[in-house]
């Protein structure tokens, strides 16, 4: 009886020490969950989730204040990745949201109609529009995330979304598996 208690006590002690040691040794700084969620988000900073940017949304997901299916640009891929990360059930994109266009888009300013009001510059979440007051603006296409936040403020409707053109460095081989399903059906 006594030896059993003793053994168990010693065991508990050892495991306790081990756990304590592990907690110190493998301590993670900060809140990695928010960072990890943020990594999975597409960083368009479009705010369609209802939060002012990707990181606030990530914080909201981490603290269980937001669902994982609110990101239209990320689409199913992001939802599945988030579900995997958080061990939750993947679900369809929130029905109130419009799914993102199938191919990535960027904003293009019609430079003839632009009046130089700077409203789009203020709206751009990633500072991808350059220009000054009463000067024509233009989109820095490498930085544009396609968030569409510049469209509503434009008083002359001179911004349009265009698909990113493929070139030989961004071209991708088509999915060979798709051909099979086509030939089968």
């Amino acid at each position, binding site marked *: 009886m006594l030896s059993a208690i003793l053994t168990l006590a010693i065991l508990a002690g050892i495991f306790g020490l081990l756990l304590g040691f592990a907690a110190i040794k493998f301590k993670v700084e900060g809140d990695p969950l928010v960072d990890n969620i*943020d990594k999975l*988000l*597409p*960083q*368009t*900073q479009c705010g369609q989730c209802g939060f002012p*940017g*990707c*990181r606030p949304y990530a914080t909201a997901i981490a603290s269980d204040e937001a669902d994982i299916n609110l990101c239209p640009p990320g689409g199913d891929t992001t939802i599945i990745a988030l579900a995997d990360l958080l061990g939750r059930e993947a679900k369809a994109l929130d029905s109130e949201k419009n799914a993102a266009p199938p191919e990535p888009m960027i904003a293009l300013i019609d430079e003839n109609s632009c009046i130089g009001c700077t409203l789009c510059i203020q709206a751009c*979440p*990633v*500072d*991808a529009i350059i220009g000054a007051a009463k000067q024509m603006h233009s989109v820095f296409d*490498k*930085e544009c*995330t396609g968030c569409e936040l510049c469209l509503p403020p434009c008083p002359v409707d001179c911004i349009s979304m265009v698909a990113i053109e*493929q*070139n*030989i460095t*961004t*071209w*991708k*081989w*088509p*999915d*060979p*598996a798709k*051909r*099979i399903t086509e*030939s089968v059906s």
Partner: protein
Amino acid sequence: MSPLWSFPGGIHPPMHKEESTRSPIVKLPLPERLILPLHQHIGAPSTPDVNLGDQVLKGQRIAHADGYVSVALHAPTSGTITDIGEYPIPHPSGLSDLCIILSPDGQEKWISRETKDDYLFMDASHLRNRVRDAGIVGLGGAGFPAFIKLNPGPRNVIETLIINGIECEPYISCDDMLMRERTANIVSGVKIIAHAVQARQSIIAIEDNKPEAYQAMLEATANEPDLSVVQCPTIYPQGSEKQLIYVVTGKEVPSDGLPLNVGVVVHNVGTAAAIYSAIAKAEPLISRIVTVTGDAIRKPQNLEVLIGTPIRSLLDFCDAQTQIDQLIMGGPMMGFTIHTPLASVLKTTNCILATTYNSLPEKNMEMPCIRCGACADACPIKLLPQQLYWYARAKDFEKIQDYNLFDCIECGCCAYVCPSNIPLVHYYRYAKTEIWSKEREQQKADIARQRHDFRAERLAKEKAEKAARHKRKRNELKEKSDPSKKETLIKNGAKSKKKAAILEAMERVQAKKEAHKTEPKNTVNLTEEQQRKIDQINKKRETRKNNED
């Protein structure tokens, strides 16, 4: 000669090389226009040096290297630059890219050149620069800028220089014909390369299905003690760099390493000949040998073609049938479909293969993988193609890298032997481009995040500054409206307070001036005349000031 080794896997497809080796190399007549894509090789495309309407001479540089992994591009003949714009290029995507269009004037007028015979005494770095300026890339097919492989770096000792005359891919015979007909150029080129990399020995490797080429090279190197020729048993893909190194030296190039790491440099026979022309004759790379063959070609042969020649011209010259089911650049194992014969010959174009479905039939229906393992047995890298296929299909791009997707050389052996007709290599290419695209997206997302964070920070700062300003103003207003302080304020007067501050500042400036006793420097040691002029001006100023007052 040291014994040869054999790499794992490999296949023995029917070679079909005899068709195009019956007649000697013929020079293709000047085409009507040349389309010169700026993206000719691995690495960064070159940047144009010429403008629309410029007259250029044969061999004149028309685009310069952009960055380290890049080489120049030269005018293949004399003529006029008629356009610089997007034209279809030979690429599996069928997309267009930036090209320089040259209309030949038919004069073939060379830019001035100076020939050199003392190349074996030239400094290695000088040789490298000349090779780079001559726009030479590996002519075996991959198109890696050749000068980089002439630079072993200070710490690497090159034990063996291997000259690749294997040409293991079916149908292609341009290296074979080059070795038969331009043996001396190749040997001189090999000597230049050996000199540049300080190789202890040079070995020219030729497959045993090219006895004429072997014989020719053997005779040409009879008096060269450091240069030997070896005949390798035919097996595909022996011409692949890492496989060839293993066959010749028994050394395995590490997966993430270069041949340099095992003391080996490999150059193609065509590259050797081009290096000879560049160094000895100062001729940049403006033409190459191209095999035109396939069962849709009535006169299969090897042509010497200017870079930029439209493929249409080659087909016409070799009397192609109108019925071409597949037009392939490169061989049947690793080549790619060209979408239009308007695209042109690149520096890396070794073969134009025009076939009908009689000789290269359309693929049968893809069946499920039965995991027979034939692909794994054929893989020269010892990958597990069936697992790669599985993960590519499942779009599990992490797991597929775990199974070493990026060690795949896309030789096509696995797809060749697959009983289920699975286009395995297509799956790997798909997975690779998907992974690259994901990496690009990730990079873009990271930049977007940074920019967003930066903007958020800036906005917060602006807001804070604004708030601080408001607060100060409010405080001032408060002070003004405070009745207890009103009297003193009136007494001194807000205005007088300000004025006092200004006066104080001016005094400080004056004091400073006094202390330094500064005078404009150019007012000392003046000539009389200058002094007079200055006095005059000063007087004028004085009077004007007085008038104004």
